[in-house]
């Protein structure tokens, strides 16, 4: 029996909808005046096309302009699809890091949180990460969605969650002001707090950013403690270069599973490291297709690059809870085929857009 549009949007995380049917259902949901949110219903007037009539396939998402910048000023309530009724189960409103200007806002609905976390938990299972461990996260909480995702992960895949708060915006401010001594002191402050939890609690899984993991690794006693107790290090937030990943896996934490995640507030979730790849292979991230899909594109034309080539990461988020197609991220990645023929690309060797050396600064002889 064919699924209704509503059913397609409410499938369990491990049931794959037909990607094009899914897109049509999502367009119906987000652009029907009965069910869509105010932001998109208003925005539809100036799109120049009718999403319900014209967006029939995953490919057609390209018709959408990148409206991410408009999420800087949007009223939070205007992002809640009306179809959730009078008492929508809103987990919260969250903000992007604010690296490129003022932060952008998204809404996190309960059904998406459950679906995203269940999918991500299954990926940890594929990495052989044991269930029912206590988790420690050295992560952004506050306005950033990752803290909320972490707590939900910790109590569904793990048992209990402990968190140390990391304020990335403050770090960026310090870096912009050239206050590197303060950056250093703040990083040590975070490690000191994490060390206390690691020493006193039974922590089986550590979630941390690569720069902080590198900092933790400077302390041989802490390295020994992590090797003794922690079964999995889940890293994300910034990228880990291939050489560091190799060193972590082979020399620093040889007995600990190392599992990367690539995510952002604008994805409202993460893409997970593909399980079963060797330490010598590039770290590939698979997205939660068809809800979150990547396309690796040439930065100017926005046309996909060939597999194996590098390009900017363009992200579509299409779920019942939220719609943000054609969002061009700052990241550069290698285009890799998705698993099992799912729509969208997988990505590897992520880095931020290269900053070229400034030709103007040329005085001096060194």
């Amino acid at each position: 029996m064919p699924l209704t549009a509503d059913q397609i949007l409410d499938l369990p995380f491990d049931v794959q909808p037909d990607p094009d049917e899914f897109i049509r259902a999502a367009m119906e949901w987000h652009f029907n005046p009965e069910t869509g949110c105010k932001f998109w219903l208003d925005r539809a007037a100036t799109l120049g096309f009718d999403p319900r009539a014209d967006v029939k396939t995953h490919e057609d998402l390209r018709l959408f302009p990148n409206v991410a910048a408009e999420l800087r000023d949007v009223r939070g309530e205007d992002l809640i699809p009306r179809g959730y009724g009078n008492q929508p189960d809103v987990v919260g409103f969250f903000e992007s890091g604010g690296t490129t200007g003022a932060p952008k806002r998204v809404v996190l609905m309960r059904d998406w949180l459950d679906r995203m976390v269940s999918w991500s938990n299954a990926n940890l299972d594929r990495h052989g990460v044991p269930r029912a461990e206590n988790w420690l996260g050295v992560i952004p909480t506050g306005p950033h969605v990752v803290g909320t995702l972490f707590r939900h992960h910790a109590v569904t895949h793990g048992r209990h969650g402990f968190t140390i708060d990391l304020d990335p915006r403050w770090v960026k401010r310090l870096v912009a002001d050239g206050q590197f001594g303060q950056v250093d002191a703040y990083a040590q402050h975070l490690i000191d707090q994490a060390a206390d939890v690691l020493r006193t609690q039974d922590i089986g899984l550590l979630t941390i950013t690569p720069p902080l993991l590198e900092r933790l690794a400077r302390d041989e006693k802490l390295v020994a403690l992590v090797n003794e107790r922690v079964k999995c290090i889940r890293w994300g937030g910034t990228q880990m270069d291939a050489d560091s990943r190799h060193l972590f896996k082979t020399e620093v934490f040889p007995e600990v599973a190392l599992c990367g995640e690539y995510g952002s507030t604008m994805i409202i979730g993460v893409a997970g490291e593909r399980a079963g790849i060797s330490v010598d292979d590039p770290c590939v991230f698979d997205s939660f297709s068809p809800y979150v899909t990547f396309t690796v594109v040439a930065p100017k034309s926005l046309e996909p690059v060939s597999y194996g080539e590098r390009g900017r990461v363009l992200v579509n988020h299409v779920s019942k809870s939220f719609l943000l197609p054609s969002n061009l991220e700052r990241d550069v990645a290698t285009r890799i085929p998705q698993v099992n023929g799912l729509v969208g690309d997988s990505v590897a060797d992520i880095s931020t857009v290269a900053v070229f050396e400034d030709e103007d600064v040329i005085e001096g002889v060194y």
Partner: protein
Amino acid sequence: MIDLPALGATGAYRSRNIQTVTDVAGTALAELSLVPPLYVNRTMAALRRSSIMPADERADAMIRAAKLFATATIDGLTVEEYQHAVSRVGGVPISSVVTATTTVAERVAKAHASVQYARPRGAVDNWRDPLTRTGRSVWTRRGNVFAVHAAGNHPGTHSIWPEALALGYRVAVRPSSRDPFTPHRLVAALRSAGFADDQVVLLPTDHAGADAILHGADLGMVYGGEEVTRKYCEAATVLPQGPGRSKILITADVDWRDHLDVIVSSVSGHGGTGCVNTTAIFVEGDPTPLAEAVAARLSAATPLPPEDDKAVLPVQPVAVAKAIERHLLKKAAGARLWLGGDGVVGELGDGSAALLPAVFQLDDPAAPQAGVELPFPCVWFAPWTPEAGTEPLKNTLVLNAMTHDTQLIDRLLGEPTISNLYLGSQHTHWMDPSVPHDGYLADFLMRNKGVIRN
């Protein structure tokens, strides 16, 4: 393709993150392994753990390393191949690279001796010296691990940091991408001669890794421009090697005609790429005849590929040369143009260009252009008066004062921002192990520790 792995505490390390080193024409010549901060941290920790070689063995090893550096085939490169690579990538005239090979080797071989010039006469080297029985200073290291962010403008700059090894420091060198060859060859030679892998390392790395090198060391030396000086001027543990802005002063009692060779050499010797090459010349009276004469002499230099034995000018990729030219001509607005006013880019046809000499004349000793230091023979002339005094001569690595005014010499010697004062006719790039360059490195690396035995 020349393979340049990192030389870590456990041997050579080839990373996945490879920087292709291209020559001045854009042709790939070498592959340099860049290491991440994690690797740097682990290496610096290993240096800290490593044992120290006795001083006599260090001196012996450095003498042998110097010979290897100057003569041996190291990691597949003969001396000639090494020199060719330095010249092609850095654009330094080959004759200058050949000279520097000898200079570096001589300095390395004598480092154990040259460091002694910095030791205060009251200090002894060893607590076992009988002088400590009645109380004495023992000359001791301020730390154990020394980091160098090396320069890439000229291979001769690598003659200085080996003194740290002679003094017993464990040393980590971050090479410049413009000359990774010289420190690679030097570190490899030191290891072949007896230094252990965890005593001297080469860590090619990006900015984050560079910070980690300094962070992991007790003391560091950083070559760079104005921004480096600003960044580290207050850090007691980092010795910045900033702009040279070397100068010549010629007072009215000296006839410049007797010293034209020295003046021209100060500007253009070694390709004019050094911090010890003259950037500005102050003349009491009218600088015009001297500017004209120097311009005439420098105009004879012809653009040649850097590996040509007759090359005297530095070479850069055309894009870099043009960027330097744009910057120079913008700065030179309002100055009298003697040479280079219509451009300094001498294209060689293969994507590279020689930087042709430039001579400009300013009408005010306080003109800011006199501090514009560029990596080729480029000199600013300005008038000087006794009333202008020492002010325009401040912030100078080497000042050659051609004057008989002893009171003026006293004031110049007393000026704290002038590092070296050469009197009479002595080109500004003259160096000797007994004479400090910007102070002795050992001034920074060593301290006096009071010791008494009874």
